[in-house]
C-alpha cells in the first residue's frame, strides 16, 4: 500500500505491530472511578471551551452590582446593608442558574457518536451522566467563588469568615447537584438543547423571583409569603444567610436539602431509565 512509500514507515510498522500485539486487559475500575473519569472529561471540556463559563460569571456579577447600587438604598437604607442581605441570595441564584447548563450540555453531548462508544464499553452504565454532574459541581464552585470575590470587593463580609463561605459553597454544590437531576431528566426527554434551556427557565424564573433573594418577604401579601415559605430556593437562601451570619440551625440546613434530596430520589431513577433506553 501507499504506506510503504514513506521511508519512516517501516519504523512505524514496527511500533504498530508491537502496539497491536499488546493485549492488556485491566480489570474494571468500578462505578466511582468511572464517574470520576467522566467528571474529569467535563473539566477538560471547560478547559477547551472556557467561554462556557462566561454566562456563569457575567450574569451574577451584573445582578450583584445592579441590584446593590440601584435598589440597595431604597430597599435596605444603604447599599452596604443591602449587599450584606443580597449576596447569599445571589449565590443561590447563581448556582441554580448554572445547574441548567448540566442539562443543556448533556443534551448536545449525548447525541454525538462518542456516546455509542461509551455505551458499548464495559463501564458502569450511568457513569457518563453522574460524572458530568459531578464535573459541574466545579462549575458551581467557580461561579460561587467569583460572586464572593465581587461581593468582597464591594464590601461584603461574612460574619463567620472563610469557614462560613466554604460551608455555604458546600451546601450550594449539594443543592445544585440534587436539582440538576431535573435538568438532566429534561435533557434526556426533549430533542434540542435550546428546548432544555427554555423549559428550565420556565421552572426556575418563578422559583428565584418568588423568593427572599432580593427582598424580605415580610412586605409581601400573605399568599405570596406562604409560597416563599415553601419555595426550595428561599429555604436555601435562608440557610446560606444563616451560615454566613452564624445563626444557622440544623433545621434550616435540613429544609434546604429536602428539595434536592426529593428531586434526586424521583428524577435520578427516571433519568437512568431514560438513558438506558435504546435510541
Amino acid at each position, binding site marked *: *500500500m*501507499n*504506506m510503504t512509500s514513506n521511508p519512516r514507515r517501516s519504523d*512505524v*510498522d514496527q*511500533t*504498530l*505491530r*508491537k*502496539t*497491536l*500485539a*499488546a*493485549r*492488556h*486487559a*485491566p*480489570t*474494571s*475500575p468500578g462505578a466511582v*472511578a*468511572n464517574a470520576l*473519569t467522566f467528571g*474529569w*472529561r467535563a473539566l*477538560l*471540556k471547560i478547559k*477547551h*471551551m472556557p467561554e462556557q463559563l462566561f454566562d456563569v460569571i457575567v450574569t451574577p456579577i451584573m445582578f450583584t452590582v445592579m441590584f446593590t447600587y440601584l435598589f440597595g438604598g431604597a430597599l435596605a437604607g444603604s447599599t452596604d446593608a443591602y449587599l450584606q442581605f443580597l449576596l447569599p441570595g445571589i449565590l443561590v441564584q447563581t448556582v441554580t442558574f448554572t445547574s441548567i447548563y448540566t442539562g443543556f450540555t448533556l443534551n448536545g453531548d449525548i447525541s*454525538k*457518536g*462518542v456516546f*455509542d*462508544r*461509551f*455505551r*458499548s*464499553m*464495559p*463501564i458502569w452504565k450511568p*457513569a457518563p451522566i453522574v460524572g458530568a454532574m459531578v464535573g459541574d459541581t466545579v462549575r458551581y464552585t467557580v461561579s460561587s467563588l467569583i460572586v464572593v470575590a465581587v461581593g468582597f470587593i464591594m464590601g461584603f463580609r461574612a460574619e463567620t469568615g472563610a469557614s462560613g463561605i466554604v460551608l455555604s459553597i458546600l451546601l450550594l454544590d449539594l443543592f445544585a447537584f440534587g436539582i440538576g437531576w431535573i435538568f438532566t431528566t429534561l435533557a434526556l426527554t426533549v430533542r434540542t438543547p435550546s428546548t432544555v434551556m427554555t423549559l428550565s427557565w420556565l421552572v426556575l424564573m418563578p422559583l428565584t423571583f418568588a423568593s427572599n433573594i432580593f427582598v424580605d418577604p415580610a412586605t409581601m401579601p400573605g399568599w405570596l409569603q406562604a409560597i416563599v415559605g415553601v419555595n426550595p430556593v428561599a429555604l436555601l437562601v435562608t440557610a446560606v444567610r444563616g451560615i454566613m451570619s452564624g445563626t444557622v440551625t440544623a433545621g434550616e440546613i435540613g429544609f434546604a436539602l429536602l428539595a434536592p434530596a426529593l428531586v434526586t430520589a424521583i428524577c435520578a431513577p427516571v433519568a437512568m431509565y431514560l438513558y438506558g433506553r*435504546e435510541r
Partner: protein
Amino acid sequence: MHQHHPLAIETSGLVKCFGTNRAVDGIDLQVRQGSIYGLLGPNGAGKTTTVRLLATLLRPDAGKAIVLGRDVVREPDEIRRQISLTGQFASIDEDLTGYENLVLLARLLGFSRSQSKARAGELLDAFDLEDASRRQAKTYSGGMRRRLDIAASIISTPDLLFLDEPTTGLDPRSRGQVWELIRMLVAGGTTVLLTTQYLEEADQLADRIAVIDRGSVIAEGTSTELKASIGSGVLHVRLSDPAQRDAARQLLAERLGALVHLEGDPRALAAQVSDPDRVAAALVALSASGIAVSDFSLGQPSLDEVFFALTGHAAASADQSPESAL
C-alpha cells in the same frame, strides 16, 4: 468454551424494526474467529443497525445473536468486555485532544493514570498521530479522525472489532492506511466485522462478504464466489457513432457470452465480464467489423452493478462511489 468457540458471531433470523420499517429483516450470519467479515450494501440497507444489534446497543425484536459465545440479550456486559466499536460517525470526542481522548478511554477501562498515559502515547505514535496529539480532534482531517477512532477501539485489544464504514469519505491514501491497520489487527488475532459501500474494499479485506439489501442478506460467500456470480468486472465501451450501438451490442454479447446493457449516454454500453481474456478478442472484433471505439475501460463492478447483477434492480439509494470502479 467461550474462548474456543469457532464462530465469533452467529445470528439467525435477526430482526429489528423501527416502527413499521424492518431495518433488519431476518439476517443470518456466521463469522469465523480471526477472520474479516464484510457487510456490503448501499445506504439504508441495514448495516449500521446490524452492527448496533451485535454491539449490544440495540435489542433485537426477533431472532438470536451469539457474539463470542454469548447471547446479546442475556449477556451484554460480558460481550462489551471483549468487543470494540468504531461507529459510522466518528466515535471520538471532538472537543478533546487526541491524547485526552485515548487517556480518557484507557482510564474508563481501568488502566492506571501512568499506564493510560503510556498507552495513549504508544498508540498515537503507532498511528502516526503524535504531531497532532495535543490538538482538539475537531481540527483533524478525515483520515486522522478515523485513525484516532480505531486507536481508541484497541486501547485494550478487543477480540472482536466492529468497524462501521471505516473508509467512507476518505482519500485513497488514508483508505490504504486504514486497510493496512485492519490487516495488522487481524494478524494479531482480532476478528473484524466491517461494513462498507465499496465492493473493492470488501474484496481487498474481507475473507467472506454478505451483500445486504433492505435488511436481508441477498448473497454471501468469499469474494471469489461473489464475483463468479456477478462477473469479475465490467467492460464499459464508448462508441464514436451512436448509430452503431445496436450492432456493437450484438457483437459484444456474442463474443463475451454475457448480457450487454445500454447506458444513459447514447454512445455507451456496459457488460458484465466473467472472463477478462475474452475482452481483448471482443474489442478486436468490434474494430474488425468497422465499429469505432472512442474509449473503453475494464473495472471492478460498482455497488450499483453488483446490485443489478444480483437483484435485477438498482440499489435503492446507493451513494455514488467514484473510487469503487478503480
